[in-house]
């Protein structure tokens, strides 16, 4: 609300946080600016006494304008991991120094050879009872820690995930606090090789790093031992419950779903405002050039994405709320709702990040040549966002996790049990079994102007694809194959089933949101967006709906027609709908997307600051061109 807006203005206008346009800075300079701002930010957070995690999140996002920064992992992973996994004694030793930034930490999990598949990590921590120490090693090139943010240049400690060996046995992955740089000189400690992994597509201000450890010893007390423990003699004590880590994952995925919504909203804001400013060609001979937003093809590119941005916004809020609601239960030890939420968020993380990733690129393409310039801000939004398809769980793997839950629920239903929650539509399948028909043959009367009816259509599609995948899987199993092989041979079907399930959930949540909107005008425009989202999804996947007999040919025609009518209906509200996202110009970082629409003159002003324009005659004229012309 307003308070947030005021805070944002306060931060954005703070002279301490000013700097040159990042597009003109080298990677080293961008890292330096980010570190400078982070240092000041920490001081100011303390000055203002800001300690609430949400408030820290917003403050940080204003300071860094939504961009990554080198202390992200310290604030987002190192400190929280200490809070949740350290014993009281460890918290005494590490938490306050880390809170005071005497210790700057990162979270070193991913290795060169393994990412999402955690069990494959190769770093070892071998317990030596003689000295009561763990010996950490990176036994292969592939075991080198690779990618952790803030590791390359910034951190002096890392929480390292390693395979624990004690009494000659491997006990699986555990977390260890490892000092990596000398306090005071910041030089790497003996036995530690650490550095930056080099330039990336984006994340220029982040020093993603590598870490190689050779017989590096840490005291036994540096293993995070709130749950699992190694006793002085090397005896291993198992943790009580391993589902607890689900909670953190659900939380992080809810953030990514929110990021998908925000990043897509930013891209839509830029592309829609620019399309209202850009005039091109003629619709009618002799008339002035129309705004490109008046072309049907342009509307068809942008408005479904606008609807998607709103849909994802509601989904992100839903996951966050659900997580908040059940996190009390989790603390009480009631984990019954966690598995479904965990499975659902895996798929939604993948679905929303894939869609937003493609959507940002469509917005950029819709801005033509100028979208390709960094002044548009769109290249930057894309390169910053696209890694979320990979981190915190590679998307295809995430989809297959959701599929595993769907197949499990289907199997339960087949054996006569009832399932609850978002998958309860599978219960209908058992009723279906009495009749010889295919589930899909169940007639769904779809009214294409009614969101509630469209939810039913999406539900039927999901049911059909889940059933098809489960049956194909069973057929593979009947034929020959090991469980894993059969699973692999069905995985394309399984991903499709997960996608259909997620799509259904999103349409359902968007539709449910409509009745909560009290302002009639807002509800009307949201209903239009919701319809557009649902109908556009059908028109892009007509095969599924036709094949399952959910829609007839005539209805498909009506759907396509209605999508185009909705484009025209939404057109007058398009700019207002992106203005509602309320991005500050500084945060948007785009010349094309400026609130005032003064695009061309500001592109010229921006270009004049380009590094190539620092001197009127570039030095390479004297170095290369002139000598060449002289010689020829």
């Amino acid at each position: 609300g307003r308070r947030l807006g005021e805070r944002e203005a306060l931060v954005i206008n703070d002279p301490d946080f000013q700097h040159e346009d990042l597009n003109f800075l080298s990677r080293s300079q961008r890292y330096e600016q980010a570190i400078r701002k982070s240092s000041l930010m920490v001081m100011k957070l303390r000055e203002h006494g800001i300690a609430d995690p949400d408030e820290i999140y917003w403050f940080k996002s204003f300071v860094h304008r939504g961009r990554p920064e080198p202390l992200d992992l310290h604030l987002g992973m190192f400190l929280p991991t200490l809070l949740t996994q350290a014993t009281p004694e460890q918290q005494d030793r590490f938490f306050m120094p880390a809170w005071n930034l005497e210790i700057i930490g990162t979270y070193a999990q991913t290795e060169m050879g393994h990412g999402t598949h955690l069990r494959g990590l190769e770093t070892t921590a071998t317990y030596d009872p003689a000295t009561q120490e763990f010996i950490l090693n990176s036994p292969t090139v592939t075991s080198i820690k690779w990618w952790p943010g803030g590791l390359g240049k910034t951190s002096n400690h890392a929480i390292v995930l390693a395979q624990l060996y004690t009494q000659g046995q491997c006990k699986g992955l555990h977390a260890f606090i490892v000092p990596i740089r000398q306090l005071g000189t910041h030089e790497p400690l003996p036995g530690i090789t650490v550095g930056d992994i080099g330039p990336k597509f984006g994340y220029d201000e982040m020093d993603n790093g590598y870490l190689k450890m050779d017989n590096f010893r840490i005291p036994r007390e540096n293993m995070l031992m709130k749950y699992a423990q190694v006793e002085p003699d090397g005896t291993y004590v198992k943790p009580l419950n391993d589902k607890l880590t689900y909670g953190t994952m659900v939380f992080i995925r809810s953030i990514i779903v929110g990021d998908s919504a925000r990043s897509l909203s930013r891209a839509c804001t830029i592309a829609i405002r620019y399309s209202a400013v850009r005039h091109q060609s003629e619709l009618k001979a002799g008339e002035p050039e129309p705004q490109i937003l008046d072309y049907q093809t342009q509307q068809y590119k942008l408005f479904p994405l606008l609807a998607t941005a709103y849909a994802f916004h509601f989904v992100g809020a839903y996951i966050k709320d659900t997580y908040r609601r059940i996190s009390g239960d989790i603390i009480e030890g009631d984990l019954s709702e966690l598995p479904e939420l965990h499975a659902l968020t895996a798929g939604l993380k993948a679905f929303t990040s894939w869609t937003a990733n493609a959507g940002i690129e469509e917005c950029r393409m819709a801005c033509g040549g100028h979208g390709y310039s960094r002044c548009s801000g769109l290249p930057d939004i894309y390169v910053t966002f696209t890694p979320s398809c990979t981190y915190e769980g590679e998307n295809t793997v995430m989809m297959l996790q959701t599929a595993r839950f769907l197949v499990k629920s289907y199997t339960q239903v087949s054996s006569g049990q009832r399932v609850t929650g978002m998958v309860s539509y599978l219960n209908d399948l058992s009723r279906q079994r009495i009749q010889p028909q295919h589930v899909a043959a169940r007639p769904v009367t779809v009214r294409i102007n009614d969101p509630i009816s469209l939810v039913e259509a999406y539900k039927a599609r999901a049911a059909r694809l889940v059933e098809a995948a489960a049956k194909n899987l069973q057929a593979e199993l009947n034929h020959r194959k090991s469980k894993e092989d059969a699973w692999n041979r069905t995985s394309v079907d399984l991903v499709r089933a997960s996608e259909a399930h997620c799509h259904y959930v999103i349409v359902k949540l968007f539709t449910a949101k409509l009745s909560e909107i009290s302002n009639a005008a807002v509800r009307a425009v949201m209903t239009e967006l919701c319809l557009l989202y649902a109908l556009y999804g059908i028109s892009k996947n007509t095969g599924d709906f036709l094949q399952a007999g959910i829609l007839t040919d005539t209805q498909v025609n009506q759907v396509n027609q209605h999508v185009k009518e909705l484009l025209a209906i939404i057109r007058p509200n398009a700019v207002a709908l992106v203005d509602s996202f309320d991005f500050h110009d500084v945060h948007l970082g785009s010349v094309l997307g400026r609130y005032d629409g003064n695009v061309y003159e500001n592109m010229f002003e921006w270009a004049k600051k380009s590094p190539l324009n620092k001197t009127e005659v570039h030095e390479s004229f004297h170095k290369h061109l002139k000598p060449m012309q002289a010689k020829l």
Partner: protein
Amino acid sequence: LGSPLKTPGVNPDLASERLTASFSVEKLTARLDGGAEHTRMRRAIVEAIESDPAFSRENQYFQSQNERYEAAVRRAVHLQKKMREMGWTENGPEIKYIYRWLSGDIAFLLHRVFMRSISVLGSDKQVAKWIPLATEHQIIGSYAQTELGHGTYLQGLETTAVFDIATQEFLLNTPKISAMKWWPGDMGRSATHTVVFAQLYVHGKCYGVHPFIVQIRSLQDHSPRPGVTVGDIGPKMNFEHTDNGYLMLQNVRVPRENMLSRFCEVQPDGTYVRWGSQKINYFTMTTVRISILSDEVILPLMKACTIAIRYSAVRRQSKLKPGEQEAKILDYQTQQQKLLPQLAAAYAFHFINIYLHELFDRGYQEIQGRNFDSLPELHAFSSGFKAMVTQYCTSGVEICLRACGGHGYSLLSGLPSLYTRVLASCIYEGENTVLFLQTARFLIKCFMAASAGQPIPPSVTYLSSAKPGKCPAKDKLDFLSPDVYLKFFQFSRLLSSSAAKLQHLIQSGAEKHEAWNQCTVQLVKAAQAHCHYITVKIFVETVEKLDNKAGIQKVMKHLCDLFALHGIFSNAGDFLYDGYLSGAQMDLVTASYLDLLAVIRMDAVPLVDAFDFTDKSLNSALGSYDGQVYQRLYEWAQKSPTNQQVSPAYGKYLKPLLQNRLSKL
């Protein structure tokens, strides 16, 4: 390249892939090059360039925009020297291999466009005056067409050139900010001259857009000429080495002779005369769209496939069977479904590109003989295929990038720069949506003509064939028959229903332009479907003509089937509609498609090896021939400036933060 077994240091995971090839890689390479003698020549040229350290691109991922620009200029200057040394010439057969290897990372590419435009649009006298100067690099040229406010829609350009009879000069002006020239390459820092496209005014009458040669910088000290404001447009998604520029002209005068006048001229008294046919000129411009496809669009997809598929054979992740070694990610069906359709598309586009070049060569001969009949068809071809191939290749490269997980995101993978380069091709030489609609306009015209019983060009005769009834296929193997799947793509419903809707709208009183705008979403789809059909058809015909020996025809048939079935699988709705295909048949298509993935999987690495890219031209830590991915990534990262130079950040910010906390916190 030799036998993989004899190549020491090759990762066994990659070596084993090469042992099972079902065809001769060397023979396929020769086929792709158009004959073994071409392969030999290409390799000799690549060898000559790669052995010259001046052409090394190893550091490019670490360089700033300024450094990239300087390196590109240095390379361009060095190339002149190298060509003299080697006896290579601009018109020789070597030139395409040279530029292909350089993959555009060199200055003065627009200088070449400058020269070409003078050759095409200039009078003999103008050619005689300017071409020798440009060839000798006494002047450096650019080509200034696009403006801040207008790109693809050329009639909208706003720069003006007003003829002044008194001085026999043209007065060039940038009347408003949106008229500023924006984007031309080589113009920001390098060019001394440029061809400026401006609205010609004589005696207050506008004659439309014409080209003028304008000197923009001093030949002495390179400073901008009076009245000229020129500079670099700032950082972009890629092309850091190119100084794309802006240009503002204030009362800049050029002599009457500087208007390029092969086709029209302003005479001393101000009389505007037009002669000859513009059609040849028009044809030349059209061919540019086809000429970019090979090196700028299809090659990046081939490189991306090479990198992603080799890496997927080396990367092991998770287990398929308990107790076994972790599986290569290439063995996962989901990974195959991402990569192998892209590989099939790379081959499909290679063949369509050859076809288009043959078509345009024939067209050129006809036009030389003053026969302009095929011009509309060729124009529709160039627009549609430029749009389809660039769009498909762009999305294909991005799929490859994301299929490489986190490491694909590192610049050292080579994939981000391939992606950011190829995606620019969706916009330059005509924005894709606009181009699809040009093709659609041609198709609609042909469709109407066919309905009225008039003759139509050969590429579209299928439009008049009878509507197919039901698909006869009963077994999943039936879908591996080109006769069966070609019928799917010959599918003109999108076009016929667009035509019907257009007519309906017009009959119910809509103005023509409004009716057209109402149908554009569907018309774009219709144009895409047409290009898709031609691509499948040409792939089928190419496979039929291939040599049966060395296993090449068989593996190409698999790729052709995959390309076709992937198209059906991805557009299922279009084929289910009307009941041409039943739901059960669609399940068979899917099954057949998934089976093919497993078959092609066995040849995946040899199929990318056949593209025959050297490691240096791939410039990728993930895609090298030997598959030593992790070692290379580690060693290369250590060379990053962030590890070589001391960052001032620690001393300036981190140290005080770490140590002065007590006083400040």
